[in-house]
């Protein structure tokens, strides 16, 4: 078996990588950027600048608000105009730091040249610390702070670093372009991650629909001469890029319910994260920009842009010629897991990977009809769940039964709703059940902890 994939479920939506030939392009900074303080999973960062301060590109403007937190750096140079609530793309008010752009002055010490640095520092801890200071978070979508992932809890050991270059969602091409144009940097970033985890082997997983990238990365690995690093060709299957699915596909190990990948000895990082790691560690450049695919059949000017964090979505869209007349939905991210944009004034965050324009015909949901018990949702579920059942239980608000049927394991990949011939909003309801079950589990854990502490104090 030459092509690998995960063992349960999965779907294969149409490919639609229409922007694959568009080279990465630097988007000029917007006149005003809005940098949010909660761009990652975990505690929101705490702003450490004041209104009126002058900032440079790469300067820290917010500090981590907890262990699971991240530094946030200014992505532009200019003056801090305000710090206050502003609606994100779902309309929810979160704290943003507004910076009026003046010029493009970078902080001293940041290497903005294109020279490739390949010397890997010897000290793994120092690498992780530099990643922390660089504000690197997982750019595959979940935006989990990278340094937390790289600090395995005591008792667990990393056996393999997996670089996720699957890009299994339709339309998205920014990782592909990164692999093609910054392949060397990604490979060096992967080597850094290998070193940080104690010299473990590394696999770069790329789906078979990107043969150029596979060949290119193989060539780069051979040229740079890193041992213990290989490219694995993956079968096209969604959600291959899901962390648990990818570990299953690469290592044939299944991460248990509620457990972290490290429990089976895996650390998964996205291609874009590997690039950010390279830049943070060897170029001293914190995470201030990321590549964003702007695409959609109805969008005339496809592009893969390198965008400063905090750029208003409207600025990006206007730069590429505005919203096409027949687009009805704009998605931040891919069509399977991305979030629909309700507010065009919202700014990009570190994890923004794409802006996708869909037409009425492509995206409007058809009316819901009766379940015909075809079982297609259960066949498609990569977690082996029974979406039709969870849908019912969730609608009946039977959270205990939801938990017994593992609603908490749902990864919200959308395969069930995608494949349902009756157009039943399965995932919409399962998400509700999952939320309640996770809350119940957390409440139980907290109660158990409190009880244990009470017993101790006695």
């Amino acid at each position, binding site marked *: 078996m030459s092509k690998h994939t995960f063992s*349960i479920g999965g*779907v294969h*939506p149409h490919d639609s990588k229409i922007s694959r030939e568009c080279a990465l392009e630097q988007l000029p900074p917007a006149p005003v950027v809005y940098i949010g303080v909660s761009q990652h999973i975990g505690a929101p960062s705490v702003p450490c600048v004041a209104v009126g301060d002058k900032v440079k590109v790469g300067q820290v403007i917010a500090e981590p608000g907890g262990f699971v937190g991240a530094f946030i750096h200014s992505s532009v140079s200019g003056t801090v105009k305000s710090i206050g609530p502003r609606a994100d793309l779902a309309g929810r008010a979160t704290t943003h730091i507004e910076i009026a752009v003046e010029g493009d002055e970078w902080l001293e010490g940041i290497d903005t040249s294109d020279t490739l640095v390949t010397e890997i520092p010897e000290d793994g801890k120092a690498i992780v610390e530099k990643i922390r200071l660089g504000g690197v978070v997982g750019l595959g979508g979940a935006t989990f702070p990278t340094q937390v992932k790289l600090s395995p809890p005591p008792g667990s050991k990393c056996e393999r670093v997996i670089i996720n270059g699957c890009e299994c969602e339709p339309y998205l091409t920014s990782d592909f372009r990164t692999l093609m144009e910054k392949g060397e940097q990604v490979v060096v970033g992967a080597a850094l991650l290998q070193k940080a985890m104690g010299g473990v082997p590394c696999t770069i997983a790329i789906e078979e629909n990107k043969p150029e990238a596979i060949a290119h990365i193989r060539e780069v690995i051979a040229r740079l001469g890193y041992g213990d690093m290989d490219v694995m060709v993956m079968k096209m299957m969604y959600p291959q890029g899901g962390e*648990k699915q990818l570990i299953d596909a690469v290592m044939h190990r*299944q*991460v*248990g*319910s509620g*457990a972290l990948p490290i429990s089976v000895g895996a650390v998964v990082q996205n291609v874009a994260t590997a690039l950010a790691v390279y830049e943070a560690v060897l170029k001293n450049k914190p995470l201030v920009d990321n590549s964003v695919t702007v695409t959609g059949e109805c969008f005339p000017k496809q592009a893969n842009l390198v965008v400063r964090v905090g750029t208003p979505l409207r600025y990006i869209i206007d730069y590429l010629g505005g*919203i*096409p007349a*027949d*687009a*009805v*939905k*704009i*998605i931040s991210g891919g*069509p*399977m*897991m991305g*979030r*629909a*944009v*309700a507010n*065009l004034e919202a700014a990009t965050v570190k994890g923004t990977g794409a802006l*996708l324009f*869909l037409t*009425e015909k*492509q*995206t409007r*949901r*058809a009316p819901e*009809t*009766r*379940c*015909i*018990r*075809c079982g*297609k949702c*259960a066949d498609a*579920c*990569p*977690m*082996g769940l*029974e979406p*039709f059942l969870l849908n019912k239980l969730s609608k009946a608000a039977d959270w205990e039964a939801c938990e017994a049927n*593992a609603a908490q*394991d749902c990864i*919200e*990949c*959308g395969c069930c*709703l*995608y*494949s*349902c*011939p009756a*157009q039943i*909003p399965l*995932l919409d309801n399962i*998400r509700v059940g999952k939320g309640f079950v996770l809350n119940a589990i957390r409440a139980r854990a907290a109660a158990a902890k409190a009880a244990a502490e009470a017993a101790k104090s006695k």
Partner: protein
Amino acid sequence: MSKLLVSPSPHIHSKDSTRSLMLDVVIALIPAVICSVLFYGWQELLVLGVSVASCVLLEWAITKYLLKTPSTVGDLSAVITGILLALNLPYTTPWWVVFAGAVVAIGVAKMTFGGIGQNIWNPALVGRVFLLVSFPTYMTSWSAPKGLFGADAVSGATPLGAIQEGLMRGSTVQELTSAYDYRDMLFANLGGSAGEVCALALLAGFVYLCCRKVVKPWITLSIFGTVALTSLVFWGIDPARFTDPLFNLLTGGLVLGACFMATDYVTSPMSVKGGIVFGIGIGFLTMMIRYFGSYPEGVSFAILIMNSVVPLLNMWFKQKKFGRK
């Protein structure tokens, strides 16, 4: 662009809809329909027409006047029920018997349970079994095919019926089966209900369904496997009393039942494992009824019996959950 559309993910959908899946099943049944019309002539066309029209009309009328819910005729499931019911009846069936079958299939077996997705038993089979026990004379006297413009048919029994009769008279199976040529069975040259006659046309339709990923082949394969295995064992023990595997595979609507009735979404288990157990059950029960039951034909009863245990199979045989034992 007017207002932005906002919805939870996913934002795209596969092209499948209930209607498209059902349409695929209809397409898969077309070879068998053409075959049966070619071999039985206009009378078969009448049975098909009456059956499909009454199924569709009944479902429309029941949703409109009794349930007062939006019509579900558009999903084409009633059309399938109509075709399957017709293929289960001899072409000589009078139109009012066909209509009675449709009333039971749609009115009793499907709509009383709440319509599509809610029924426990395959509607077409319930209709067929109802007719089988209510109008045995129409249902058990079969005629040899006469072709589209052929002469009047000669009444006779189906191969299985003939063999059961013959066995009761004291003949051996070898004597009785020697009258039949398996090639005739494959290419529709025997008496029987329309759907029993051309195994090849049915199999072609089934292959189409599998290729289109409308159904999974496991249920059907496990039925065929079980029937072959069971009859092999009995035939091996006493070839004079029990018919051989190939004969059993090709007669008595087994192909129709295994390919199109047992694989009905609503009344079959969801998981692959459950489906295989379901198929084994059908295959075994079919053979038991054929060998030891009073009816010569057991597929309908076997499927209906196994339909009843589908909820249990769904409960017992679940897909293994990721990362769990």
